[in-house]
């Protein structure tokens, strides 16, 4: 198992090299001018351009800039944003933390709500609950996240305010609020009021998908021989479903959830934008629009590394659910 992990980790430098190189090429092939982005529609006077280009080394050939970036990276320096001159490492730290918190809560919602709904509707197949699940998940998958987010804002912000509904029904529709957390993930000081709407909006589509996948894999498992055996042994339905069924049905669902965590961290642009949650998705999006290469590079690098780790964890977790799966040397025996 140890060597399996090592082999996977050996991929990290290769992927990082690939990402940096591809992005460098993209930025230089793409038409545009990062200096122009700083002054909007106006002309950039020559001296202004020269001074800005000198500050960021943009006046040097691509390969020189490429080499310089690697030397910087080797010392742990991600450079400075062209657009607002912030240290990229501090942008990564701030937006990364915000993204990770939101994504984690979204995944928690996904796990709890999605798996429960899926299991219940599989076990109570064709019941009213099952029908309701099918209809509502179909609808959720079809509604774009930002429309849902906007509806949440309207329902729990605008509507409750304009109709003078009690204070506890009025949620802040924008921003991260006090940004106050303990143990990294737990909201404190009224932070949860800022978290609820974006977390549910972000979780919506994935929750629906998890519920549907859980239902179908569970249905398959329920028909398996070992389930009948377990029943025959005299176990209660509850025990059979939870101990034997759920565990076996989990593998595809875990894959889905694991991949989703990665996606939710880096690509929650729409939810982040609608709720003004200062995460990585919006930061990357804005940086691409303004051709702010150091920011895009820094954020993407961190995401690449994060994806690799999440994938590794997902793969390792299979072993927990299915004892037949073993990694590395043991598996070869």
């Amino acid at each position, binding site marked *: 198992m140890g060597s399996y992990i090592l082999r996977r980790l050996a991929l990290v430098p290769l992927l990082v090299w690939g990402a940096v190189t591809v992005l460098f090429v993209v930025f230089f092939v793409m*038409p*545009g*001018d990062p*200096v*122009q982005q*700083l*002054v*909007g*529609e*106006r*002309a*950039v*006077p020559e*001296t*202004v351009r020269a*001074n*800005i280009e*000198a*500050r960021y080394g943009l006046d040097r050939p691509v390969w020189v800039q490429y080499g310089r970036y690697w030397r910087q990276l080797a010392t742990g320096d991600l450079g400075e944003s062209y*657009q*607002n*001159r*912030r240290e990229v490492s501090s*942008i990564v730290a701030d937006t990364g933390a915000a993204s990770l918190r939101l994504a984690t809560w979204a995944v928690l919602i996904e796990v709890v709500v999605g798996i429960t709904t899926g299991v219940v509707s599989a076990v109570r197949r064709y019941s009213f609950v099952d029908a309701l699940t099918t209809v509502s998940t179909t609808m959720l998958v079809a509604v*774009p996240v*930002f*429309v849902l*987010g*906007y*509806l949440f*804002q*309207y329902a729990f*912000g*605008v*509507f*409750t*305010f*304009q*109709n*003078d509904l009690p204070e506890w029904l*009025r949620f*802040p*529709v*924008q*921003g*991260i609020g006090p*940004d106050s957390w303990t143990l990294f993930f737990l909201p404190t000081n009224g932070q949860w009021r800022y978290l609820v709407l974006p977390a549910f909006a972000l979780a919506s589509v994935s929750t629906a998908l998890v519920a549907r996948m859980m239902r179908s894999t569970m249905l398959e498992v329920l028909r398996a021989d070992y389930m009948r055996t377990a029943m025959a042994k005299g176990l209660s339905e509850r025990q059979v479903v939870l101990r034997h069924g759920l565990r076996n049905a989990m593998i595809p669902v875990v894959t889905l959830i694991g991949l989703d965590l990665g996606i939710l961290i880096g690509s929650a*642009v*729409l939810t*982040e*934008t*609608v*709720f*003004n949650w*200062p995460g990585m998705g*919006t930061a990357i*999006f*804005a940086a691409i*629009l303004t*051709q702010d290469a150091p920011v895009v590079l820094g954020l993407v690098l961190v995401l690449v590394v994060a994806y690799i780790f999440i994938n590794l964890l997902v793969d390792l977790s299979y072993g927990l659910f299915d004892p037949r799966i073993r990694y590395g040397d043991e598996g070869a025996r």
Partner: protein
Amino acid sequence: MPTRGDRHVLVRLVALFLSLAVVATACATNGDEGDAGPTQPGGSGGQERAGELVEGGTLVDLQNFAQGNPDHIDPGLSSTIQGSQPGQLLFDGLTETDYVTGELEPMVAESWESNEAGDEWTFRLRQGVNWHNGEPVVPSDFKFAWERVANPQFASEVAYHLDPILGSDAVAAGEATELDGVVADDEAMTLTVRLEYPYSIFPATVSHLVFSPVPRSEVEALADQSQWERGVMTGNGPFKMAEPWVDDQYIKLERNGDYWGGLEGHNAYLDALEFRISADVDSAYQAFEAGQGQTGYIPPGRTEEALVKYPQHNATEETLGTYYFAFNMNDPVVGGDENLPLRQAMALAIDKQAIVDTVYSGGRQVATGHTPPALPGYEEGLSDIAGAGAPDVERARGLLEEWGGQVTEPIRLNFNAGAGHEPVVQIIQANLEEIGIPSTLDGRDSTTYFSQMRAGEGQFFRAGWIWDYVAYDNGLYPLFHSESIGGDNLAQYDNPEYDELIDTARSTTEEAEANALYRQAETLVLEDVAVVPLNWYTGQIVYDESVNNFIQSPLQFVAYDQIWLEP
């Protein structure tokens, strides 16, 4: 400066879907329209209501940063209106334009005078203006600030504003650290500035935020000057920073209790002012509708609905900004004297009112000239062709006959794609077709559009201009002087007669006289139909009934220090 609506292609798409969602929800809640809405004061259109002035309170602003985090708020770096708004409240410059009358008023400088030629200006500074830390503001703080901006290491994108000052190019090139032309006498409290050329509007120029003073003792110690804005900047204005700017979230200011008084002679009425930063205009507006702030920015396409709901707004007040189409005067088909009748015909074919009504839901004003009425020195009716308020198809057809040529290739209507200009260009295309001129839409990538237009690749193209300071010159020299070709003279307009009028105006220190020359120059451009002004920008701000004495300057800055809140 970039206009407000030109960013975020995807967000725009999102906005479209969102508006659909609004329609859906609006239908659902239509029933309780009458009794709902604690945000609806009685009557309509009332900007001012009689009431006792109340000091104190915190204003949460949802309009200024409705479109995202500013790049910079350092007065020496900020290139956008939004990013400069906090600086306007934190820093007092030498002069200031009165937000209501548009006249130039003394600020930290109590008076100024120039030599005969208009290339040397002496400002006499007021006693008793202090930094937020209690130190007095002295002339050398201005000199230091300007040298900081011109310094090549600082690499400021707005350093070009200092170009008229003698010695600014040497500092920018790194050959000197001090501005040769600036002499600061802290004893006598005078600041003397020698310029590269006669420049009658220099006192108006220094009202721009980039000329703000900077507290030398605090800033000098910084290793990287651009990091000043990351902390609490010490200023000399009616507000001070309460804490450092939190990216993507807020900028918090509080009243400066020791303010010298400014133009109106009093401290700010508000205790505190919180600028919320939003990633998306629509959701910022949603927050305003949810009562989570007192001022909001009307998102594109929602003007009509917003004005009905919130009688307090500035959407009909025009600002110093012009949205125009211009001809590439070097183009063989549309440029040159011989093609003047064609340009005239095209100008007369365009239905400016239709554009204002359908694209901006009536929120802008039809432009009858290049310079907007908000500018002192403005006069109506400089041209009846480029400045025509309504189309005249008959006359246009007559001019085409006079021209006698044939448009064989469709004329290219160039614009930056994905920034909301498509419907405008479509209307123009239809208008031109009506007089038999074929045209084609040439939407280009917005990241390279303006450099292409600058290089003369356009034919009949869209652009916009927002004034930096209240001076006639600021809309004419950069846009149409031959020296500005390759810069913002996108039309490649090169007319020696025009250049001479502008140069003379620049050395005429008598304001009325100078403005008469500028008007003559503008008339020339309009008669040559190098430009067809389409509309003048108006405000886009709504505010709730607690906000009193809301004033926006023609440069689109809000006088937050004059606002008071009804509890």
